[in-house]
């Protein structure tokens, strides 16, 4: 089994296939989308493939250490051009193919007009501890 991080972006990524902003969806379209995501997560739980996941707020800021005694520097809230992550999910699956399959399933969540959103998701394998034997 290997763990993967699935990242959903508010913006900064490539445009979705069905690229209608969420604020122009009907209420039903939003509900259907949310239900799809919830069902997806439930299926992962049932299969023993779900590790964790959260949705993230639009708010946030950049922080860095800037020398002892100095306040951390921030330039938030995010400027329009910056990438912003909408949420993440960690999955634990048998193969890279399975991770791709699940990412595609999540990307197919319905959007405007009930058509698949086809949004771009970022899929990143997690690095782990080295195996005891390296060959």
């Amino acid at each position, binding site marked *: 089994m290997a763990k993967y991080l699935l990242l959903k972006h508010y913006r900064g990524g490539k445009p979705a296939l069905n690229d209608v902003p969420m604020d122009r969806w009907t209420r039903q379209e939003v509900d259907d989308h949310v239900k799809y995501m919830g069902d997806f997560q439930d299926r992962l739980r049932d299969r*023993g493939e779900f590790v964790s996941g959260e949705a993230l707020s639009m708010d946030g800021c950049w922080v860095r250490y800037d020398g002892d005694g100095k306040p951390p520097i921030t330039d938030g809230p995010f400027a329009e051009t910056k990438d912003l992550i909408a949420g993440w999910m960690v999955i634990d699956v048998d193969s890279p193919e399975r991770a791709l399959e699940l990412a595609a399933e999540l990307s197919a969540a319905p959007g405007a007009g009930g058509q698949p959103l086809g949004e771009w998701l970022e899929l990143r394998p997690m690095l782990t501890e080295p195996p005891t034997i*390296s*060959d």
Partner: protein
Amino acid sequence: METEGIRDLIPAVIGILVRRGSGRVAITRAYADFASAEDAVQSALVRALETWPTDPPRDPKGWLITVAWRQFLDGVRSDRARQAREERIERQPGATGVPDADDTLQLYFLCAHPSLTPATAAALTLRAVAGLTTRQIAEAYLVPEATMAQRLSRAKRQLRDVRLDQPGDARTVLRVLFLLFNQGYSGDVDLALEAIRVTRQLSRLLDEPEVRGLLALMLLHHARRRARTTPGGQLISLADQDRSRWDTQMITEGVAILQAALAEDRLGEFQAQAAIAALHADAPSTAETDWVQIVEWYDELVRLTDSPIVRLNRAVALAEADGAPAGLAAIADLDPGLPRYAAVSAYLHEKLGDFGAAARLYAEASRLATSAAERDHLARCASVLSRAENPGTSGRRAG
């Protein structure tokens, strides 16, 4: 009887329950339910851990079988009248003296069933054969307990219609145990130690030199584990390991087990790998290692597995025995896309004295690494070599 020894009894008791169940409960079910048997043993275990410290049984296994069997009957039957009748029958033959080796062995094969993925098979082996709790297994795999519980119940559902008397493939069982060993450790369960314990158990049941070969391999690698990383988790390459930190007692045991296996003259890949590990364990330093013999064992491994990864590792040994050019020639016809190809190529170029190429290859290998420790180790190698190439940059600070 110490309660610590209790887990060794689990596979035998589950095996007996499933076997008995398929005969007795067949009236209502086509096959004994592995999941019910396993659940029954788990609840019997909980009872044992509660009562044994103050009231130790004379015959621990008999006690477990009796308690688990009652639990099993409760679980699988809804007909109360039939339950009373069958329990009366069941109480008559004593629970002691049951030959169990056969059942236990079949449990190993069931847990490594080809319908399960290797990772799932490993988790199920930890649960049913090693007797770990779902929480312990979840912690070892760094997933939530609910996730592991679902994974295990899916596995058990998949096995529901598998008959216990189907012959299994011993190689699959050994692969699952090896996978377990390689999972390493985390939390309060050391999977490598669990794998050794379970393989030791299997080696008593199955008269097969490859089982002993695998056990020897695990012991020989485990003996070096302390020396493989710094306290901070950084990898230490074989050449730089403090060999006084190797566990000599474990090495001695591993070598003895390997020799007995080799004497049977039925060579397999685990025995050949163990032989290589034994030659490393035996050497006082990298330079004094019997590289010629290690290359010979790699030749055997290539013959047995025909694996390109084995060829890659053989090239490293060949470079030690015959020099870097021989090693580079040996990897020339291998696919550069192989895992760790760049790392091996980097090492061989470094050995050849071509530090510029070696640094570039180490950097590439670092980007391709699949573990954080390996990535950091290769990045360090790249950094050391590029500083040697360009001394002017050695004082620069990162970031």
